């Protein structure tokens, strides 16, 4: 293999890895902070992708403008879902274990609801549009311009979230709640405001990921599920609740998948990722990078 081919392979892995990281960050925020394992996370990504596709094909709105729009829409939706379901669930569950199990069931319900709603509206076939599809040459390797843009933006948003959590007072509050819910409340951090907000931010990020995906790939109502599974794998790799772990895990998994598929068989992809997932969960339930 030439250097150019290696570069292309590596880049394609990193591009999908960037999307994985973005989805995983949102999921990790929800699980790390509130113990909501949102199985429907990928469905909200699909919602963002369909929203972008609809606005692009019907009104000719540039997908770039749809990035903040999908974030805002999905964030509103997240606030509504939290207010309608999880707020009540948190109040009525006797302990955290029960809350976790019930939250998982609620998110399974959301999965059915959202996925079939979209498939009811637009049918199950693949959709897509053209956006910056011309190839770009860089040092003997060819890249699709839209995919490079997707990668750059995914990385930008992931980094922005991590910086936000590291440097601002809001981020400090979130990290404190992750470390010790009781302690954080004792020093005056308002759980009732932070929980819905962060649930909304998590969904907003998946909306952005969906918007980005629709720029470079075709979309369908069932597109979300593989991303949920991958995000689960990524956060188990990086450790539940660890943000930089999720970013590193996402990029790593993207590259491993690209290499694995190139050197073995594309139909082994799902098999490989599930095997990695189960092996990691059984061997190191606290994540690969846990101390």
């Amino acid at each position: 293999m030439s250097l150019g081919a290696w570069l292309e392979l590596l880049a394609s892995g990193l591009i999908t890895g960037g999307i994985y990281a973005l989805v995983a960050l949102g999921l990790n925020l929800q699980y790390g902070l509130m113990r909501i394992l949102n199985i429907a996370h990928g469905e909200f990504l699909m919602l963002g992708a369909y929203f972008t596709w609809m606005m692009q094909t019907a009104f000719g709105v540039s997908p770039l403008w749809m990035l903040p729009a999908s974030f805002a829409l999905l964030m509103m939706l997240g606030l509504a879902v939290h207010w309608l379901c999880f707020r009540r669930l948190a109040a009525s569950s006797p302990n955290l274990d029960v809350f976790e199990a019930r939250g998982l069931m609620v998110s399974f319900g959301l999965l059915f609801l959202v996925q079939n709603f979209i498939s009811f509206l637009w049918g199950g076939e693949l959709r897509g549009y053209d956006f910056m599809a011309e190839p770009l040459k860089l040092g003997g390797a060819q890249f699709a311009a839209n995919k490079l843009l997707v990668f750059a933006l995914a990385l930008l948003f992931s980094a922005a979230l991590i910086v936000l959590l590291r440097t601002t007072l809001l981020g400090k509050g979130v990290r404190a709640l992750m470390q010790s819910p009781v302690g954080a409340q004792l020093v005056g951090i308002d759980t009732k405001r932070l929980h819905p907000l962060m649930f909304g931010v998590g969904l907003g990020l998946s909306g952005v990921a969906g918007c980005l995906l629709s720029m470079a790939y075709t979309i369908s109502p069932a597109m979300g599920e593989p991303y949920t599974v991958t995000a689960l794998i990524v956060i188990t790799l990086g450790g539940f609740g660890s943000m930089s772990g999720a970013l590193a895990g996402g990029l790593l998994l993207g590259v491993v998948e690209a290499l694995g598929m190139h050197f073995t068989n594309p139909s082994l992809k799902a098999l490989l990722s599930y095997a990695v997932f189960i092996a990691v969960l059984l061997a190191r339930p606290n994540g690969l990078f846990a101390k």
Partner: protein
Amino acid sequence: MSDRHLVRDVLILIGLAVAALAVPALGSEFAVSLALTCLMYIALASSWALFCGRTRYLSLATSAFFGIGAYSGALALQHELGWLSAIAIGAVLATAVAALMGAAVLHLRGTYFAVLTFGMTELIRHAVTYFEKSVTGTVGRVLTVLPERDTIYFTLLALALLAMATSIALRRTRFGLALAGIGADEQRAQTLGVDTRRVKIAGFALTAAFAGAVGAAMSVRWTYIDPPTVFNPFIGFQTVLIALVGGALTLWGPLVAAIVFSLLAETLRLQVPQLYMMSLGLLLILSVLYLPGGLASLRWAMARDAWRALRGAWERRLG
């Protein structure tokens, strides 16, 4: 549990069995197929609730056991091993896989357990798909040796009855108490001398045996099987949904919910499948939010209390 309950439960079960026996003789083709779906989900949901309801270990692996049973049963039939041995092979294989899986994951609780069983189910489905595609070179298998319609029906009826009878019996044995003890407080159960590891694996394997046998019996209904149909995660989800909506800790809850859901499925699914799935999702959310004990936890007393509260509020407003 008093013996009065035992007599009542057994009598109701016998009554239902007699009614179900009459369906193939009296009902139309459609009624029989509807009854088959009901029986399948009764067997699946009550056997799921046996272990998962009592111990609160949320397993999403039902479709894996169902699929293993379906595949091995179909293969056994094609090699002319006979109907009963095909069912037995399905059950035994599913039990063996469950024992292995249980030994690997049953030390994890809660969400970890649920997610891991889901992951393993998908792993098994992809492994079978890959095996079929690259080793056997087929995408699916056409079943040529098919038993009579009534044979399938009575087998499923027997399996559903067996599941219900096991559920009744389990309430009165040490094994059932041990399972309930694990659900209430696992550490305390262990301290009191329950071998929790062995009990959990045995319970998990028992659930899988039923799912495997049902899978083997149902595979011949399709006449053509491939991994996406028999390992369909939806079968597992619907089982969990039925048990939870009905009330996983109760005896009759899963049965009632299975009948309601099967009727709903057969009437709605053919016309507007998406609407059916959407209502399933909505029902799941609503039942978890407002009826965490399941449909069976609804009592007349609750309706009476609600009525009194309403009337009280009304009178206060007037007065």
